[in-house]
Each structure stands twice: as C-alpha cells, then as structure tokens.
C-alpha cells in the first residue's frame, strides 16, 4: 500500500435529525499528496463543508475515516488549520492579537516571545496586512479580514490548509487579488490545500485537481479533473488558453448537465386531496 499524505476512505456521514438519520455523505474515497491544491466543487447543500469538517476533525464520520500522515484524524488540531467562510476572527482582539492567539497556542513550547511576535508579523506580511495590525476586525474590510484569517491559518504551519469558500463573500476584484496572493503563498510554502468553492474559474485557476461532488443526499465524488496547467499561472494569459477553456467546460458540464440543480429534481406533482394534510405538514416543517 502506498502511503498518501491524506487519505479519506469510505467516509459516510449521517446526521441525526428529528425525522430520523439523514445520510449526507456516502462512500467518499480521496487521496491527496503533499503540496497538492485540491478544490471541492458541487451544488449548494451537497456536503462539501461536511467533507471539510470531517478532515478538520470538527465532525466525526459515521463510517470510514480520514488518515493524515499515517495517523487517524479524530479531533480538530492546528496541523489541519481551517479558514472559515466569514473569516471568524475574534471581534474583540486586534488583527495582531488574533494571529498571536493561534501562534502562542501552537508554538509556545518551541518559540520565545520575540520569535513569536516576529512570526506573527511575518505571516501578516505574507497577506499584506501589517499596516492594520492594531485594528479590530470591525474596522477593516471583509477582504482584509479574510486575509487575516488566512494569515492566522498559515501561522499555524499546518500540514493541510482547509478553506471553506474563503473568498465567497468578496467582490470580484478583491477575490482575484486574494486568489493571486494565495497562489503565490502556496507555491512558496508548498502547502497542501483543500478548498471549497462555487466558482468554476477559481477552481480551475488554483487547483491541481478538482473534485466534483454529486448532489445529496448521500453525496459522493462524481468526477475528478486533473488540471495540468503550468505554474505560475496568470489569469489573463490563461483566459483563452485552450486547455483552460477545456477544463472549465468539463467542470461546467458536470455541474449543469450531469448534476442538475437539486430543486429541479424535486417532484412537481401536486398533492392529492386526501394527502393535503400531510403535504402542508411537510411544508410547515420545511419552513
């Protein structure tokens, strides 16, 4: 058996709900090598965050599991740093203190005080945020806060960086800028990244592989596309590169032809009169 950096094998995830167990994920197998950049893409609600949370250890798979560097994952830890969708900085701490909280926790046994301070500043520099070190998250823009969130995750020196729609809430320009920053950092540090995204261009531009998920319930991996584009990548040059266009089309075809948006799958038959009561019950519960 060859050893992979990160292995997901036979992951199944069921949630207990008032209406009985809900199987969100089924039979997820995925191997990721060191230094790889993998994107997860799929329709809303298919279970991408659930996959990420299983890798992070924030959720425990009901069956199967996740092995990182030969060790089974069963609790969260700083070697699997997470960048959350809405930055998740402590609003009462300054930018510096937010990163320092992580650094102190992870490195307090290995670094001196001075060294830790320098390390915080170094990571803020990576994302170009040194100028706002003493500001609170409420005083900086969403894009800046997201950069700090990335700096905090990088500062933990994780073996895997997990990102849940890190740029989802940002405008196109800021997003493009942060994508370039992330690409640069990833190449420099050769970090392993798993990123969830809804944006096909973002996935193709950043990834070594794109993992496309089928719709839930019991979502699994539908297809995997290897993106064989030379790095460093330039979005402008790539825009009409034939390979780029081809990869883009493959992802789009998967999303919009093979996996139609879930609501279009839903049965459209009107409820019969004898079943009206149950139908309104269901409706009430959905609301």
């Amino acid at each position, binding site marked *: 058996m060859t050893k992979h950096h990160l292995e997901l094998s036979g992951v199944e995830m069921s949630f207990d709900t008032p209406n009985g167990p809900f199987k969100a994920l089924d039979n997820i197998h995925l191997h990721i090598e060191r230094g790889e950049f993998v994107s997860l893409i799929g329709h809303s609600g298919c279970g991408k965050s659930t996959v990420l949370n299983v890798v*992070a250890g*924030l959720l425990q798979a009901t069956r199967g599991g996740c092995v990182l560097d030969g060790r089974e994952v069963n*609790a*969260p*830890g*700083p070697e*699997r*740093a*997470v960048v*959350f969708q*809405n930055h*998740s900085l*402590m*609003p*009462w*701490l300054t930018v510096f203190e937010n990163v320092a*909280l*992580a650094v102190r*926790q*992870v490195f307090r046994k290995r670094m001196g005080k001075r060294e830790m301070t320098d390390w915080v500043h170094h990571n803020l520099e990576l994302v170009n945020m040194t100028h706002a070190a003493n500001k*609170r998250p409420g005083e900086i823009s969403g894009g800046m806060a997201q950069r700090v969130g990335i700096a905090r995750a990088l500062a*933990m020196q994780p073996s895997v960086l997990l990102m849940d729609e890190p740029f989802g809430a940002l405008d196109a320009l800021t997003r493009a800028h942060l994508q370039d920053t992330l690409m640069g950092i990833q190449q420099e540090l050769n970090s392993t990244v798993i990123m969830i995204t809804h944006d096909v261009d973002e996935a193709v531009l950043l990834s070594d592989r794109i993992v496309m998920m089928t719709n839930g319930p019991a979502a699994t991996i539908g297809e995997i596309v290897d993106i064989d584009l030379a790095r460093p990548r330039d979005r402008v040059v790539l825009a009409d590169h034939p390979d780029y266009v081809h990869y883009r089309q493959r992802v789009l075809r998967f999303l919009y032809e093979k996996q139609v948006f879930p609501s279009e799958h839903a049965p459209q038959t009107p409820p019969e009169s004898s079943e009206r009561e149950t139908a309104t019950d269901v409706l009430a519960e959905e609301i």
Partner: protein
Amino acid sequence: MSTLTPTMTLMARLRERLPGRSGRDLMQALTLPVVGIVLFLMCWQLVAPRIDTSLGQFPSPGQVWHQAGQLWQEHQNERQRAERYIEMQEARNQRILADNPDAEVKIRDYPGAPTFIDQIGTSLITVLAGFLLASVIAIPLGILIGLNRHFAAAANPLIQIFKPVSPLAWLPLVTMVVSAVYVSEDPLFEKAFITSMITVTLCSLWPTLINTSTGVSSVDPDLVNVSRVLRLPFLTHTRKVVLPAAVPQIFTGLRVSLGIAWMVLIAAEMLAQNPGLGKFVWDEFQNGSSDSLSRIMVAVLAIGFIGYLLDRIMLLLQRQVAWNE
C-alpha cells in the same frame, strides 16, 4: 442681555464638545427634555392643590424644593452637633486620663438619628453590596449554565420559578434565617444590613444569570470551532473566547440587575424597617406631620435620580469594558 450671554457661551461650549451635531440638532436635543420637565411641573402645580389628604394638601413643586433645602440643612446641623459631641467626648476622656492614666475611657458613637443624607448613604452601600454579591454569584453560575447543556436543563426550572418572586415574599424568610444563622458576639455588619443585602441579591441575581448564560451559550459557533482547531484548553477557551464574546450580554444583564436591586432595596427597607431611604419614607409616613408628604416627595425624586445615575455609571463602565461599544 446679561443673563443671555452665559447661556450662549454654554451653548457654544456644548456645541464644541458634540462635534458633528448642527446647532439646530443641539437646540432640539436640549429643548424637548426641558419642555417635558416644564410641562410636568406645570401639571403638578395645577393638580397638587386639588388633592386633599389627611396630612393636608398634596405638596406643590415649590414646597418640595423648599423641603429639599430643609433636609439638607437638617443634615448640616446634625453634622455639627455630631462633631461637637465627639469633641466634648474627647475632651472629657482627656480629663479622665489626666487624673488617672489607668482609667477605662468609653468612646461612644454620636447617638443622633440618621438624616436623609445618611439614609441615602446607607441605601447606596446596601444596594452596591447586594448587587456585587449577586454579580459574584450570577456571572460564574451563568457561565457554567451557558457552557453545559445538562446543567442548563437542570437549572432552568429553578430560574423560571424564582425569577418572578417579589422581594416582599423573600423578606420574612430572609429576616428569620439571618436572625437564626448570623449570630456573633461582635457582628461586623448589622443584621438589618445583611437582611436587606441578601433580599436585594436574591431579587437582582436573575437578569445577570440569564443574560450571562445566553451570552455564553450563543457564542458564534465558528469562533468555538477556531478554538477547537487551536485545541485551546478549557480554561483558556473560557477566558479568551467565551467570556469576551459574552461581555456585552453580561453587561446588559448587569444593568437590568442594578435597576432591580435599587427598586427592591427601597421596598425591603420600608417593609423591614431596615435603615435606608425606604425607612425614611416609612418613618415620614408614620410621622404624619404636615411636612411629611413633601419630604416623601423629595425622597421619591432622590430615589429616581439615584437610580438614573446608577444606570449611567453602568453604561460608562460598559463602554470601557465591552468591545462592541
């Protein structure tokens, strides 16, 4: 003209201190409250003579104002008398000691009755003691309840049942229990003080408790996840994530608690004859002199004003401490 100028400079100074507000806004901000107060005083002035009580007419604003001055004067007189008493006592003791250095001298406190101002002081000390005790109990307990689902489920019915209990219901129990339990040769505090304080604590504990526990339990789950990823130990997690996140809610609770504490205290003092403003009101009521109603009215206004000041102080404190202000 001469009276107008100081007002104008005052306005100008106020305007400087409130940048961003135009002159008109400021005028409005000041005028309307003044109009409200003037209207209230006018109504009071009109209605007061029409209300005849067994203690005479209901006092007008002027009479109440006069009585306030009177109460202040009484306080000053009493102070002077107390000083003289202490001086005389000291002089006498000196004399006794000069005659016989081994003689045992007695030092007695001034035996005069507490004045209105003294009663305010007593009430303030009691309310702060009761409120502090309530906070010291409610905040840690609220944190525990907020952190632990099982604990919350166990505590919830008790909170719901005890929260609405009026101070008047607690008071007899507290009085009896304090008399039974707090027995000491040389008590550090008076029993009456302990009774009032505990009653205040029992009634004012709940808003802080409830707000702290909801504040703690509703910490943004993403922040909790950050803490889990960092593997923060329980105490660090509580100190660095849970508490700061809950501080705004805790302060909201504290403000409500302090308001309740002040209201409860007056009632408790009245009913239990514990020293303080409540007792002042009760004594005046029992006294039944022609001044009683105005003196009670002074007390009512003082109680309201002090309650307002206490709330303002809490607000200032909140601005200092809470990150969302």
